[in-house]
């Protein structure tokens, strides 16, 4: 068995190469820090078993964030692994810095220069490069099978020889006199590496050797390394033609004043395409096909065999076709949503978004890196929370993890579409956009509050690399779409189906196990729902069905829609049949007015995330913060839903303009009071931001 690990700067194509070599489908994107944990897989090449480990990207062997620590620790703990060091051909200088660190470590390095962009930035002389670094160099395109195979050959070759690369020549020029005595306990070959680590003030190394953290030499060592890199570049590379990460497109997309409007326009465009025009059409088509060609024949078959009223037939009718079918019709929309999220990530625009929103983010104590996590939250909070590992300090990680569930995930969209659509019709687009915005606004305010109170983040570096824009290939487009469809189908066929059957059982049988569908008794779920429903009466949705749906929704939010469909005995997948049922006052679950629907939607948006998310949060940010987070979520959901309902009732009673104008009046008065209070406060010289200090100095 040959142990190999993939190491490189963030966003250089490590995972792409990993996928190509092993045939895996790990998530990749044009963003640094997509991979946040080590992943390993075995494969064989030319009769040899190879175990390949994919590691998160790093800049050097001294980590700054949680996910970098994974890689650094792995490299220190496994000195015998063959290290496949991937460099981006377009950004060689900074990539080689890591190569030098690896050589100092004494790793067996194979340098893989990955040509991601079609048009190279400069010409490279690989023979010379290999000579100067003393390692084998391979030039590949990580996504291409034939060129990736070259890496395999190099791995085999390296496994046969015992020769490790020599440390770069500048190492002998460094003055180690101050730390020489500390590292006597390790082997002589490893001494230079640890001495450099001590000189750089690496926390782990200092602890290990009991040396004081004194890092005056950091600049000197970095300068030595870059000096060597410059020598290499001057001999091996032609003059660069352009700068990595800059494009003419940025003139518009990053323009100081245009950036924000352009982003919002793009967002609304994607939104409209996903949920309304294209997605809506596909979704209707899916519902029709499902009803006509799958559910109708199956039900016919079953009811001929068992009789229409038999409980098995009822389960198929209500739980499987009515419940699961109603969720299944959202397949096109969910697939499209995930596709657009991937597009945003793959194109390189995401880094620009983080840059544009930095003005807001730094005010509320979030890092540019949180943007990635929060954006992934629109897809699925469970996977998004994991990416919070690329935060640099614990508080920011906890905070980002707590905020992610407020991003309305794809599972909540069916609720908005079905319930909102019933009462608001074509205007539902505004309701849905409003709900998404509400989630973001609540998250931003909560972040501000946490930053000012208990979760103050340490100074965030917001060192964010700018990748170049990249087009998505046709092949990748289709494989992404297929992957998303598959994931959704697995989810619907697994957890959602199971949960639907459970909800159906609980709602069709009484505590004495009597089949009660059809109104001849009270089911288990109804009993429970009725117990809890008084809590929710002030929010405008006190019926047992809605409360039970909320509880069932804890497993997966899609189940809220399917449960409502079940309680109302809807047997078709088409949304219109659920929608008309919730407007009938004779149904088990119905909404009395638009304001109670709004309040319910707001509650669904803000209350606890699904169990899977909670489990991941539990693992990532700990028990205490997960519980605190859930308490905040419930309190916020209750409060905001209550305000929504009360406001809605007032509008229904007095008319839109009257309420709107009086609210505007109250807002103006409040702002005026706030301004006056602030003015008085500012009179006192307060220490704090630089601007205050300046004006204070003038005044005092």
């Amino acid at each position, binding site marked *: 068995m040959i142990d190999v690990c993939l190491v490189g700067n963030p966003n250089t194509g490590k995972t792409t190469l990993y996928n190509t070599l092993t045939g895996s489908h790990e998530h990749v994107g044009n963003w640094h820090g997509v991979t946040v944990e080590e992943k390993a897989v075995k494969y064989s090449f030319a009769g040899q078993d190879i175990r390949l480990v994919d590691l998160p990207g790093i800049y050097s062997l*001294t980590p700054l964030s949680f996910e970098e620590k994974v890689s650094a620790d792995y490299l220190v703990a496994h000195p015998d692994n063959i290290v496949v060091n991937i460099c981006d051909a377009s950004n060689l200088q900074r990539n080689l810095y890591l190569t030098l660190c690896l050589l100092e470590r004494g790793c067996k390095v194979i340098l893989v220069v990955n040509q991601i962009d079609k048009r190279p930035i400069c010409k490279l002389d690989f023979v010379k490069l290999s000579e100067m670094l003393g390692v084998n160099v391979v030039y590949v395109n990580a996504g291409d099978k034939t060129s990736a195979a070259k890496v395999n050959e190099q791995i085999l070759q390296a496994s046969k020889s015992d020769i490790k690369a020599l440390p770069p020549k500048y190492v002998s020029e460094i003055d180690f006199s101050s730390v020489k005595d500390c590292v006597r306990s390790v082997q002589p070959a490893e001494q230079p590496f640890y001495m450099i680590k001590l000189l750089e003030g690496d926390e782990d190394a200092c602890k290990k050797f009991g040396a004081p953290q004194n890092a005056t030499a950091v600049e000197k060592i970095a300068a030595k390394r*870059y000096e060597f890199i410059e020598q290499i570049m001057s001999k091996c590379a032609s003059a660069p033609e352009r700068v990595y990460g800059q494009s003419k497109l940025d003139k518009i997309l990053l323009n*100081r004043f245009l950036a924000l409007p352009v982003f919002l326009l793009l967002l609304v465009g994607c939104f409209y395409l996903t949920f309304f025009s294209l997605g809506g059409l596909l979704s209707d088509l899916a519902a029709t096909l499902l009803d006509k060609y799958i559910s109708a024949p199956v039900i016919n078959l079953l009811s001929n065999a068992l009789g229409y009223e038999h409980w098995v037939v009822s389960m198929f009718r209500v739980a499987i076709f009515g419940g699961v079918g109603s969720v299944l019709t959202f397949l096109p929309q969910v697939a499209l949503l995930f596709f657009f999220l991937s597009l945003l990530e793959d194109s390189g625009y995401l880094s620009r978004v983080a840059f*544009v929103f*930095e003005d807001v983010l730094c005010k509320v104590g979030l890092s540019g890196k949180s943007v990635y996590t929060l954006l992934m939250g629109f897809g699925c909070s469970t996977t998004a929370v994991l990416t919070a590992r690329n935060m640099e300090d614990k508080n920011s990680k906890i905070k980002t993890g707590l905020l992610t569930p407020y991003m309305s995930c794809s599972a909540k969209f069916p609720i908005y579409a079905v319930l909102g659509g019933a009462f608001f019709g074509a205007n539902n687009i505004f309701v849905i956009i409003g709900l998404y915005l509400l989630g973001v606004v609540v998250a931003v305010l909560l972040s501000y509050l946490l930053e000012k109170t208990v979760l103050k983040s*340490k100074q965030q570096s917001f060192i964010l*690399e700018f990748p170049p824009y990249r087009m998505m290939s046709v092949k990748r487009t289709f494989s992404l779409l297929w992957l998303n469809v598959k994931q959704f189908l697995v989810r619907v066929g697994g957890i959602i189906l199971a949960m639907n059957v459970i909800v159906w059982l609980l709602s069709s049988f009484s505590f004495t196990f009597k089949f009660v569908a059809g109104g001849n008794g009270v089911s288990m779920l109804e009993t429970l729902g009725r117990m809890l429903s008084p809590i929710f009466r002030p929010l405008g949705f006190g019926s047992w069905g809605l409360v039970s749906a909320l509880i069932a929704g804890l497993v997966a939010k899609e189940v809220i829609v399917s449960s409502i469909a079940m309680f109302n005995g809807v047997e078709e997948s088409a949304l219109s049949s659920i929608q008309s049922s919730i407007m009938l006052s004779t149904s088990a679950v119905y909404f009395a007015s638009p304001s109670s629907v709004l309040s319910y939607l707001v509650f669904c948006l803000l209350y606890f995330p699904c169990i899977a998310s909670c489990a991941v949060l539990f693992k990532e940010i700990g028990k205490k913060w997960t519980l605190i987070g859930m308490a905040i979520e419930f309190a916020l959901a209750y409060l905001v839903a209550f305000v929504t309902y009360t406001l809605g009732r007032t509008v229904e009673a007095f008319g839109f303009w009257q309420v709107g104008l009086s609210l505007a009046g109250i807002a103006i008065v409040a702002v005026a009071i706030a301004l006056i209070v602030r003015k008085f406060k500012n009179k006192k010289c307060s220490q704090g931001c630089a601007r205050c200090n300046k004006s204070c100095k003038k005044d005092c």
Partner: protein
Amino acid sequence: MPFRIRRRMCELGFIAGQKVRLVRCSLLKRAFLVELRGYTLSLRKSIVDGLLVIE
């Protein structure tokens, strides 16, 4: 500037005598886009404030 971040800046190529170019800044001048060693980096104001730049 905290020591850990200073170390990271060195690793990214911010060493004495390094030429950098300010490409653009965000609307409220809280984030800056800086170009050095043939690549582009976005930095927060607090970091840029900690850099000594001689024109």
